[in-house]
């Protein structure tokens, strides 16, 4: 028998929800563990970080000077590096700081801000190192995660569609929330993958899988403006867990100049 592929799971600024989705693959977990060598997974094992990886799964965004170094180290050790979840692919909810002053934020949360080391921005992994595949979602979808892992280990391209939630929603025959009830929904511009979760619970999509390919964000913004959605509500709608993703980032606000670079605190 050949050597088992070495897999590492790494975390940056995040809530652990995406790597937890991996622990949530209960049945599959012991099977995967039989097929691969889980060489680094802080949440699940005490093994130290050594050697190289056939597959690195990276959760979380880059938000401190130390993390910038760490992600370069992990990239250098890894044959394939994939990012999992909105924090890693778009900067996460913590990227809301990119639109504000981090100094102000520090002062609000900490009595002695000097003790806290942070970057002015929270940015996706791909801003720092080359990424082989980005899996969307806040959190990622379990089935997509398993597809990603098995495809990568088999050396094929994962089968992850790039169309919008809206298309799946129509296919599922769910009543359109904006049309029928005037509920603002980001389904038309959000990437599919969740199984049309919110609309099937009578709720507008809030965009947790980030912008879909080839959609007209500005068209949707204009349509909701015309329908009378208040400007501040519209702005908040586009600026949550994928606030910094191109497409949502500049949907309703100008992108602040001074946060374009990664200035250190």
């Amino acid at each position: 028998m050949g050597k088992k592929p070495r897999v590492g799971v790494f975390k940056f600024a995040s809530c652990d929800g995406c790597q937890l989705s991996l622990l949530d693959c209960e049945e599959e977990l012991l099977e995967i563990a039989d097929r691969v060598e889980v060489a680094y997974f802080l949440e699940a094992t005490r093994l130290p970080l050594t050697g190289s990886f056939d597959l690195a799964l990276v959760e979380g965004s880059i938000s401190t000077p130390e993390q910038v170094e760490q992600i370069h180290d992990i990239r250098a050790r890894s044959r394939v590096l994939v990012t999992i979840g909105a924090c890693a692919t778009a900067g996460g909810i913590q990227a809301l700081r990119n639109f504000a002053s981090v100094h102000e934020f520090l002062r609000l949360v900490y009595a002695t801000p000097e003790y806290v080391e942070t970057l002015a921005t929270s940015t996706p992994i791909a801003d720092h190192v080359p990424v082989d595949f980005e899996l969307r979602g806040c959190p990622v979808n379990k089935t997509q995660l398993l597809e990603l892992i098995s495809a990568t280990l088999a050396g094929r391209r994962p089968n992850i569609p790039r169309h919008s939630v809206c298309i799946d929603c129509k296919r599922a025959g769910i009543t359109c929330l904006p049309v029928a009830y005037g509920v603002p929904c980001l389904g038309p511009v959000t990437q599919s993958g969740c199984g049309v979760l919110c609309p099937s619970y009578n709720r507008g999509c809030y965009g947790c899988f980030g912008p879909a390919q080839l959609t007209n964000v500005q068209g949707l913004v204009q349509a909701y403006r015309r329908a009378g959605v208040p400007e501040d509500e519209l702005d908040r709608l586009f600026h949550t867990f994928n606030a910094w993703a191109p497409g949502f980032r500049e949907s309703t606000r100008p992108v602040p100049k001074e946060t374009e670079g990664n200035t250190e605190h």
Partner: protein
Amino acid sequence: MAARQSERIKTIRVDALARVEGEGAFTIRLRDHRVEDVQLRIYEPPRFYEAFMRGRAATEAPDITARICGICPVAYQMSAVRAVEKIYQIHVPPEIRALRQLLYCGEWIESHSLHIYLLHAPDFFRAESALALAKSSPELRQHIERGLRMKRHGNEIVEMIGGRAVHPINVKVGGFYRVPTREELQRLLPDLRWGRDAAIETAKWVASFDFPDFTDDYEFVALQREDEYAILDGVVCSNKGLRIREEEFPDHFREEQVPHSHALHSRKVSNGEAVPGSDRFAGCYQVGPLARWNLNRAMAPEIARQVEADLPVRFPTANPYQSIVARSLEVLTAFDTAIKLIEAYEPPASPSVPFEPRSGTGAAITEAPRGMLYHRYTTDDRGILTEVTIIPPTSQNQLRIEKDLYLIAPRLVELPEEDACWEAEFAIRNYDPCISCATHFLKLQIERQ
């Protein structure tokens, strides 16, 4: 100071404390074999929730704060909705409260089963992980498989009511977007009945472990109710006579920033002053399963009390290593409560209660799997947040964890380096420290002077 610099310092270092959810580090400093100080540092980069939430709508609080912790999103959602509902003077009908309680039971089952089987049990066998434990013998593999299945059934409750296990989408201020039918919930019953039996096996299994001999004079703090094992609401109580409403929390507990950590510590104070006795650990307290079980076991379901009575572990206990037993009894409590809630379930007349935003301040505490979770919000008259305070269980336990480490440190220094590191991690994991909550990567460092 000059003298100190000239002294030789030996440093033992563990690069990461594994199997805690998040990232942090410990340093134990010894001088002439006497423990001088202990520090729990939090490396988790700050994410500034309390800052960026200003200017957001209060109705967004449940979805936004859920992202503080992927292991206990329901806890964040529940504290958030309750705090906002206080401001908006919303009273949810009992059917909605029951559904919230059921959703919360799902999270307790999932989070506790994860901690017992995947994170904590390996310590009692000195295994590096549950995966390694499962490989070591067919019998242990069966235990781990049982734990994973229990966890799955917890997830299924959250998925059924919330839409998905991590960051459920169905919770809103005033109730839910859509409520399940009786039939949908009843489909869960056979697995939950299996889970209740599995939880009994779990309690017997973990109670048979060898527990390190350790104890201290703990102050245990938890919500309490007279009519049920408190999860969603209650009065804040302790074994040292504290009895306050959740609004009064800031008068009795104070959050402090410590230089070595990104998380804020909290400690008990009286009238805003540190409690007398004033060593560095004055006012430390414990929240979570051990605190809750010690204080509230009389309110637990009968089956859990019966099972507890036959265990070789006696409660109340002040041995933190036995928290794994308390956790298992809480899993049993959660399965049993979930079954009863489903059996009695009547869908509410409407999935949520309508409301108008208004200005005001509201605070609420619920029992997250790791202990009390406090949220406090202030809104303007359009329902926009102007102030946000969130105190997670891990920052409340932090000082207490440091004190436990301080007490075991004299023994640690006598041990070979690797054993010392492992013992320290073991003691920390008693608290299931979810460090992403308290902001998070753990390193242990022992400095010998």
